[in-house]
């Protein structure tokens, strides 16, 4: 692969160390050491304004396993991620197939892709604040649109009397979770479209040609060629989205009260970690245990996803390769 350099090769190769040295030093100091330090702190009782700590064995982990708030936060994270991910993949699949369809010859593809990708680059913190204002109670633009333009009201009961009023979105668990999931979807499905379209472009055209010669219609080519060939890409999107989803923070943190209101139901695992470490008791040791717990859950789920989905995609690949 690499050509031999002339003469004093080892002397030149020694330069390699200088080129990677800054990376290695910074990595050891600001990445590897803090990671080990997190693991160590998880076995201590460091909290509050103290700087000293005692080792407390597995106490934090014992507490973690039976902490219903932790599992509640993990559950919230999954519900919100799922509500965002499945519509995201579904809509992105439909659009990437349509946009890549040569028979449909859709116009303005580039413009469309550019516009729906745009939210992905926006500051998540600001986006959270924007939607907080848009869904505001009682006079946010969404309520104005629902109440005044469409005439849809929330029917509440005050003193035994039915009254029509504006929606107080952030008091309602389902709606608040729905808004977080919607924002996540809004910010990420454009990215998924671009990834899937890149996957479709890389499928060999000869597969489609031979299928068309054999009399396949567009539904059949989509079902039997595009979707199976996109499997590895979809698997990649699923895993990266799940890993990213487990780290969800900015939007659920800033959309309501920084503690996952209403009723802690949009408190994601990382928001919970933040709440433990930097608010109230400043329980750094327990927060460290939470981050390790989240990490373990992420690893286990990634392995499960690969175990269940990887095998079949390998079989499909072999199968397609065989008919070629």
């Amino acid at each position: 692969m690499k050509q031999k350099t002339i003469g004093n090769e080892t002397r030149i190769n020694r330069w390699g160390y200088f080129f990677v040295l800054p990376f290695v030093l910074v990595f050891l100091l600001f990445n590897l050491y803090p990671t080990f330090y997190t693991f160590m702190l998880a076995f201590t009782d460091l909290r509050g304004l103290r700087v000293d700590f005692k080792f407390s064995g597995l106490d934090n982990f014992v507490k973690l396993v039976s902490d219903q708030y932790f599992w509640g936060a993990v559950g919230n994270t999954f519900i919100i991620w799922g509500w965002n991910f499945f519509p995201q993949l579904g809509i992105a699949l439909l659009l990437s197939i349509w946009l890549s369809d040569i028979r449909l010859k859709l116009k303005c593809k580039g413009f469309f892709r550019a516009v729906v990708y745009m939210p992905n680059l926006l500051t998540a913190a600001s986006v959270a604040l924007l939607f907080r204002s848009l869904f505001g109670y009682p006079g946010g633009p969404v309520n104005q649109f629902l109440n005044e333009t469409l005439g849809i009201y929330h029917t509440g009961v005050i003193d035994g009397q039915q009254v029509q009023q504006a929606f107080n979105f952030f008091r309602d668990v389902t709606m608040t979770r729905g808004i977080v999931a919607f924002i996540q979807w809004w910010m990420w499905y454009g990215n998924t479209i671009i990834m899937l379209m890149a996957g479709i472009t890389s499928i060999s055209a000869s597969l489609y040609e031979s299928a068309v010669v054999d009399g396949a219609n567009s539904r059949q080519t989509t079902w039997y060629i595009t979707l199976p060939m996109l499997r590895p890409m979809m698997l990649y999107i699923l895993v990266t989205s799940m890993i990213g989803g487990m780290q969800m923070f900015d939007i659920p943190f800033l959309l309501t009260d920084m503690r996952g209101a209403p009723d802690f139901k949009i408190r994601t695992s990382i928001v919970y970690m933040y709440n433990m470490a930097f608010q109230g008791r400043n329980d750094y040791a327990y927060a460290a245990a939470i981050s390790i717990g989240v990490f373990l859950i992420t690893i286990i789920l990634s392995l499960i996803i690969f175990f269940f989905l990887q095998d079949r995609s390998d079989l499909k690949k072999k199968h397609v390769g065989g008919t070629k």
Partner: protein
Amino acid sequence: MKSANSALNVKRFFIYIFMVLLVLIAIVPIYLLLINATRTNAQINAGISLIPGTNAAYNWHALTSRSFQITQGFFNSAYLAVMMTLFGVYFSAMTAYGLHVYTFKGKRALWGAILIIMMLPSSLSFIGFYQFVAKLHLLNNYIPLIVPTIASAGTVLFLRQYLQSVLSMELVDAARIDGAGEFRTFNTIILPIITPAVAAQSIFSFVGSWNNFLTPFVLISNTKKYTLPMLVQMLRGDIYRTEYGGIYLGIAVSLVPIIIFYAFMSRFIISGITMGGVKE
């Protein structure tokens, strides 16, 4: 044939409606933001409008008069984003070049480590990182935000893949025969060659640091050093409760620069996403 064509037209028609709907969903929140940033409270309360108001100057005053230093925040964000991008991309290019061109002990281990770091969620080291920075007395300092970008695993991976596809060793050898030192070769010959990949990474790195919220939010408590997302976060507070226009304007200040930049660079940015494949 004709009926097949008209069936295709019907399908096309519905797809276009769906696409228009999605474009509206992408644009309307931003459009409402810009409109409401220029309107008075009374106008905002009165209902939705598609026409801008004329109250931007008052909103700006309402926003900045409460010791809300958004101009300062803007420059803090810009400074940090520039520094983090320069450090991150330059040293990543150096690392990628070192891994690509030289053979040395531990090279495979380092490459393996880079692939593993990419998979690790940043929250895993977060508490340890915070405690470490506190011990170094570097809270309220930009150093712990800037320096760690030197070890950006994702950027190294991306740039190394690009180097593998564009760089021929003959070029490096030719430079050596001409007597150029190794660093000089890197700076004057290699960097210009990988400019497209460096530019793409710089954009993502810049936008990433511009948007970064959690780390600065935890490390920085001096409001003079706040970045834009941290300032915007303060708009949740009670003192702004009645200044709707001001709140919208504050949010707009953090979003509009990215939107303008994106309007010019969208083609390049979108091709950059799949250039290296991997992006959170």
